[in-house]
Every structure is written in C-alpha cells, then in structure tokens.
C-alpha cells in the first residue's frame, strides 16, 4: 500500500517561459469544480496512512486560504506521526496569512521556487518575483516556524554565466538552508521557450556549471544525494526518495501521475474534462522487465543506489547475468558496487543517460 501521496495543483498566476507542466490561469468557478473532483478522488483511493504528502504544481500557494484548507482537510487525517508534508511555493504569493494557515494545518516543509537571485534573469524566464521578494519570503517562513526548507534554483539559463551561478550559490549558502534542488534548464517542446525556439546553453558551459555546483555544495557540507538534489544534516526530501526507491505513491488531481501496486497511471491533463468527469487515469502497461528497468533508472539517480538483492527478489531476474556487459564497461570510474548496492560515482551521475541507454539495450 502506498505511503506517499502527490497532489497536483494546476493553477498559476502567470506562465513561466520554461514550464512544460500541466498548468493554467483559471477562475474561481473552475477551482470550485476542481476541488469537488479532488474530494471524490480522495474518497475513491484506498489510502490508510501517509508518510509523505506533497503539493506540487503549477503553483500550490496561489490557492485561497479557504481552498487550501478544503484541499488539505481530507488528507490530513491520514498523516502518520513522523510525516513530511511539503508545499511548493512561489515567493510571489507567500504572505504572513498564508504561512500562518500552513503552520496551523500542519505543513512542515516548504519548497521555494527561487530559480535565481538575479532580477534580470528572473524577468527573462517569465518569473514575476524579485530576488529581494524571494529572500524576504524565506526569512518570513523561518519566522513562522518553517525550518525544513528547500530552495529551487536553475542553471544553464539563456544569458547566464558561470559567475552568475556562483553568486546564486553564495547567496543560497548565506541563507543557511539545508536543502537545494538545482536544475539545468530543459527546453520543453510545449513550453514558451520551446515554442519560441530558444536553445539550451552550450554543453561545455553547462558541464562547467554543474561541476562547480557539486564542488561548492560539497565544500559547504552538502551531500549530493541525487543528481539535482543536495542536502545537509540528512534533510533529504523523503517524498522524492519514494520515487527513487521503487515505492508506490498516490497521484491526485488533474495532471498528476501516481503508482499503485507497481502500476503507473496518468490522470488527464485537460482541466475542463477533469472538472467534468474526474481524473480518467490512463494506465501505463509495462512488462516486468520494463518495471525492473524503471527501478534501476530511478535508483541510479541517488548516492544510495540500487539495492541489488531486493531488486532481484522483487523482479525475479539475475542482475549480474543480465547486465554483465554494462557492468564491465562502467564499474570503477562510473559505477560502484558496495554492500549489495550499485551506485553512481560523481562522474557516473554526469552521464547517467549514456549508462542507462546501455542498461536498456540489455533488456
């Protein structure tokens, strides 16, 4: 039974240029219908208890106080004693009132979409907050008792230099936050950047930036625990670890993806049909082999790696026989095997796709 739950909030104040997710700028009437469907969905799920709850988007903190409460109440009752409840927040919409409400309901982790601390770059990617607003909202969150905070940053943005990235990181370190997610810009076909034909930055520069990020984070006591995630004091994102460690998770709401009994499903991305007819999930049919590969693909993203014994037991396959060629090629420089776990080195993380393609070819 899944112990994690993801809720997708597909609403935004405006659309960022790089975003390829399911999102829209919608009226209150639409939101009313949407929340009704969410409630039905929750009722229909066999949820018994949750270790982690994650509100992602879109922009979850664009919801009104009432709407947010209505969304949270039916889920709160499932939370275990040691739960993690994360809400993704856009600094543009963080207010004292909102933080107070979050605190009262029991939200205990905020993931703040800063993206960069350079105002000119923020404008270029279609964000409407300023660097100052971002810092203020982080300080405010602390004042309201949120200590498990994460910041999202981006690199490889159009016009961003290595120096810009270094300065962003220095600003981040000065804030004393224990978790960082840092993503290179991906040009998604269905994003505004994609439609405008904006190209991603030079590979070599992007690689320089990534290596610099890893180096600086390690110097500041952060573990590089997943390709794009860094944490201090073991403040990992428990919820995200459920994806990377082959666990089930409920997916709720328009545009959400979930996994129950090992089977992935995608809810409709069309907000109008969701409001009328509910999630209409499409199930992704996968063979055991394919699921076994998914498990490798996700596990090798983390420093914890793949528990090979558990994997063999779960999928009834012989790992070393099946992948002997891949292991021969990459063990040492790119992959390590220790205490029954296969995990990537720093070099391995950088070219994980290349390695995974070879795994896929052995399927």
């Amino acid at each position, binding site marked *: 039974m899944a112990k994690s739950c*993801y809720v997708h909030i597909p609403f935004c104040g405006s659309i960022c240029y790089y975003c390829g997710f399911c999102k829209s700028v919608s009226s209150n009437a639409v939101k009313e219908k949407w929340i009704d469907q969410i409630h039905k969905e929750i009722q229909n799920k066999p949820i018994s208890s949750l270790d982690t709850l994650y509100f992602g988007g879109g922009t979850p903190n664009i919801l009104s106080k009432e709407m947010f409460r209505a969304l949270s109440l039916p889920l709160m009752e499932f939370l275990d004693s040691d739960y993690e409840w994360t809400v993704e927040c856009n600094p543009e919409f963080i207010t004292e009132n909102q933080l107070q409400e979050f605190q009262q309901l029991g939200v205990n982790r905020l993931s703040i979409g800063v993206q960069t601390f350079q105002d000119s770059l923020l404008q270029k990617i279609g964000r409407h907050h300023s660097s100052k607003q971002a810092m203020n909202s982080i300080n405010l969150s602390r004042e309201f008792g949120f200590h498990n905070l994460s910041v999202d940053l981006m690199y490889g943005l159009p016009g961003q230099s290595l120096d810009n990235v270094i300065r962003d990181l220095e600003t981040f370190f000065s804030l004393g936050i224990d978790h960082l997610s840092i*993503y*290179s810009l*991906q040009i998604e076909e269905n994003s505004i950047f994609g439609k405008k034909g904006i190209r991603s930055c030079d*590979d*070599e520069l*992007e*690689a320089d930036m*990534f*290596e610099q990020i890893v180096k600086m984070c390690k110097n500041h006591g952060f573990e590089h625990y997943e*390709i*794009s995630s860094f944490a201090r004091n073991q403040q990992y994102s428990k919820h*995200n670890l459920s*994806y990377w460690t082959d666990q089930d*998770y409920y*997916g709720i709401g328009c545009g*959400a*993806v*979930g*996994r129950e009994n090992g089977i*992935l499903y*995608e809810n409709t991305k069309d907000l109008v049909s969701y409001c009328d007819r509910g999630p209409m999930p499409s199930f*992704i049919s996968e063979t055991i082999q*394919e699921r076994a*590969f*998914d498990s490798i*693909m*996700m596990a090798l*993203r983390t420093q914890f790696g793949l528990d090979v014994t558990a994997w063999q037991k779960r999928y009834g396959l012989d790992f070393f026989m099946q992948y002997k060629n891949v292991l021969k090629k990459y063990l040492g420089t790119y992959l390590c095997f220790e205490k029954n776990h296969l995990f990537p080195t720093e070099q391995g*993380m*950088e*070219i*994980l*796709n*290349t390695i*995974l*393609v070879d795994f*896929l*070819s052995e399927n």
Partner: protein
Amino acid sequence: MDQKHIRNFSIIAHIDHGKSTLADRILELTDTVEKREMRDQILDSMDLERERGITIKLNAVQLIYHAKNGEDYIFHLIDTPGHVDFSYEVSRSLAACDGAVLVVDAAQGVQAQTLANVYLALENDLEILPVLNKVDLPSAQPEVVKEEIENLIGLDCSDAIEISAKSGLNVDQVLEQIVEKLPSPSGDPQAPLQALVFDSLYDSYRGVIAFVSVKNGSIKPKDKIRFMATGAEYEVIDVGVRTPKEIVKNSLQTGEVGWISAAIKNIEDVRVGDTITSANAPCEAPLHGYREMNPMVYCGLYPVDNARYEDLKEALSKLKLNDASLTFEPETSQALGFGFRCGFLGLLHMDVVEERLEREYNLDLIATSPSVIYHVFKTDKTMIAIDNPSALPPAQNIDHIEEPYVRAEIMVPKDYVGAMMELCQAKRGEYIDMQVIDDLRMNMVYELPLSEIIYDFFDKMKSYTKGYASLDYHFSRYKPSALVKMDILLNGQVIDALSTIVFKDFAYNRGNAMTIKLKKIIPKQQFEIPVQAAIGGKIIARTNIKALRKNVLAKCYGGDISRKKKLLEKQKEGKKRMKKVGSVEIPQEAFMAVLSMDDE
C-alpha cells in the same frame, strides 16, 4: 482488336513539366480509373514516388479510347521518369513504343532533359507529338516556346496543342492526335513470337512477372516460352494487362503491351531487354533490345547489423529485377564488415535504391560516400580500374590516374551565364562551346569531371542560378588528373570506409571541411576523439570531438518516468544505427558526410 486500332506511346518531358499530371487526366478521360479511385500521380505506385513527387519507375497501362470517328482504340500508355538519372528507364519504355507525346512547359520552355529525351525517342525511331503544357500560367509563352521547339528540335509545332494538364484544358485533343498522328504497331501476327521484356518485378506468390511488348506473334497460357539471352524455358501460367489494376486475358496479341506470369522462381533467368520467343517455334534472332546503361556512381552498402548480409543480398537481387541498371558485387571493409559495392546511374538513383532497400526490405543500411571509377596506371605499366578509394595502390606504385569526364550541357538564362562559368571553372570544367538558344537563354557546353558532378555540382548550380538552369550530361572520356587519396582517422585509426579520392589542390579545403563535418555528426563519447584528414600519412587537417561530460536529465520524479524512458528509448534507437569501429561509435550519416559538407 486489330493492330490498326492500337497505339503504344510514352509521355516524355523534363522533370516537373507535367508528365504524370497529363497521364492522370488521360486515365480520367478514358474512364480507365473511376473518379472515386482517382488520386494524383496515380501511376506512381511507390510511396517514395508520391512523397517526392517524382516518377522513378516506368509504368505501363492499357486503356480504351472512344475516338471521335466512332471507333474504339486500345492505348498502351507508358509513364516514364524525367530525371537525368533515370534516362535508362526512359529508353526501356521507348523501346516498347511506337510514338511519344512530348510535354513542354509553356512557361519554362525546352530544358536539358527535354532534349535528352527527344534524342532517345529519335534513336528509337518514334513519332513525336509535341504538346505545350501549363498554358494557363500567367508566365506562359506558348508561341515563344513553339518556336524554341522548332529551332532546337526541328519538330513542326503548327498543330501543337496548348493544354493545361492540371485543369484538363484541351487534353481531349491530345487523345485525338494520338489516334491521328501516332502510328499503330507494325508487327506480323503470323510470325514466330517476339516479345520484348521491358520491365519485371518479383511477386512472392507468383515469382517473377515479366512486362512485355509483343512485337510479333502472340502469347497465351500453356505456351512454352524461351528467354533468348539466358535460354531459360517456362510454361506460361497467365497473361494480362494493367489498367492499372491487373487484368487476366486469354492472350496477348501482336502490338499489345502486358504481363506474363510463368512461375519463374529464378530471378537470374529474366533480363530486362531480353526477347521472349516460343520454345517450340522460335524466331531466328532476338529483337534489338536497347542500349545498356553502365553505372557511373559507386558506393558501398553495408547492413548496420552484420547478421543481415544475406538479407541485403536477396533484397538487391530482387530490386535489380526491375532496375536493371543497378549492379552489385560483394566487398569487405575493415570498418563496416561485409557488404556490397553497388553501381548506380547517378546520385538520385543511389538515394532511391538505398531508400527502397530500407523501406521495402526493412533493412538498416550504411552507405559510404559515392565514388566514380578511376583508371589507375601503375609503374609496372598495368592499369587497374577501381571504384573504391580504399583499393587505391600505394602512391609509389602509381604512375598516374585518370578519371571520367562528362560532356555537360547547361541551359541557363543569360543573367546567370557568368555565375555558371565561375562554377564550372571552380569544378575543374573545360569550356567547349556556348550557343544562343533565344533572346533569353544560352546553352553552355563544358567538359567536367564526373566526380565533381556527383559531389555537389547540382546543388551549387541550383543555388547559383536560383533554380533556372537545367543540366544534362553524358560520359565523354577518361583524362589524367592530379588525384590523391585522402584518409580519415578517428582516434588515430584510419577508417577505410571514409577514404575519398580528391583533386590534389582541393585536398586541404576538403580535408578541413570533412573533419569539421564529422565533428558535428559524431556524438560526444566518453573520451576525446581526434578527427584527422591525411594524405599518404601526412596529416592535413585536424579537429577534436570533446569528451562527453554531461548527459543526464535534470528532473526525474514520479511524473517523469515514462517521458524519460521515451527519451532513453530514442537514444537507444539512435545508438543501434551507429557502427562501432574500434572504440568509436559512428552514426550512419557520417559515412556520407562528404556529400553534405561546405568546403568554401
């Protein structure tokens, strides 16, 4: 029906002058194809033809025409390709005909291939019926073009019909003129059977189907037939015609054009150009057949997956059945393994064959860059002909090398004569002659190395003249040239399949362009790869493909799993189409890089 009521004809034209459109209209007007089955380019049955809007293969159909004199006529219409590479197909169809409808675009006028096809028709003693197409275009100048036809070709155009094949305007008059002006076949129905094989194809149920034009005698099921060139004998199972649907008939009579099926399993037995006669009462001598065409361009074709060598061999044999100008011989490459050195009439032909092999036979292929045949005179006074650069003997054993030249005729508007002269000179051309066609156009005659024509001459010509020039060429002779072999090294290793023979003075530029192009095509790998061009061990150009440092998807949460996997699947497919040579993985297109590089 008696012979007097049969007309066998082709439609000939320069590419894009409206051949296939006219054929479509004729099929409609004669109710050969019902309206609901009609589609554009109906005779072009290959997907490839329809996609590219060109005719590659000839196609023969029978249709019935109710003439205005109240009598019915049988027409055999043979649609033909217009591109210079496929003039062989044209000459085959013409041999099966008695007349030809010459279509000339009333806006563009006579073009290089108009002339080339007319000469082919004249060689076959065909009556030619000129027709001006696209007269509804604002830029049409039918009177000027008629004069051009009279001056350049010497055909009387006083009765030439002005049509629009697109709208159907005056196409009915073309049909009338076919009846009035083109001759009927002149064979002897009582003579022993003589049927010219002008095409064939392989049907997996019925074996080889031969397409024939019955010149004398007749043929029916159960007849014993003999293929005169190969001596192979078979009993006829079925005969028939195409309308373009296949229709079984009781017999094929003198003057008729149709197909024969005789459970022929051995592909080698049927040769296009051969004569079929009766095994019991054979004729004395085979029909004339027609000029054999020799391939001009060669390249290596290799299966990406070496295990599919035999499949490639079988596919090539089957393709050769209805593409007699294709040749192939086994060859081996250190880099690519076992494959075939194939000969083609030109680059488009090569492209089409490669694509047909991939599509119709589901093969993944690597094609090496095209080469011509070089005559290599060695110091021991012997001469060898090589069609593969990697077969060139060491420089110290070579006295000199000769390469094939063509006589190229380029029709070009006066404004572009200067530009074309520059291009011809840059491509080592020798000026031969220049004629004035009319107030606007000139005909330039140059002798050019064939290797330059296949390299990028055609594309350059188009861009130099905004597409207004047209080109025709024929082999002229072999001439000595200062040629060298340029090798390409990846990670220090010579890749034999990437070697080319180049003109010495062009070597530095091409070497440079080639290394830069390869750097773009070959994906980064885990280590740095030096890319070098060398002549006789001396490096003339070098660049590096930097090591791959980052290939990873930044975000991957629950929602990204299937998307991410699609991305990996795509990379996996791309990888499958790469050839691993030594430690380097090389994509297919790298072996053709020489064709798409810019060396200026």
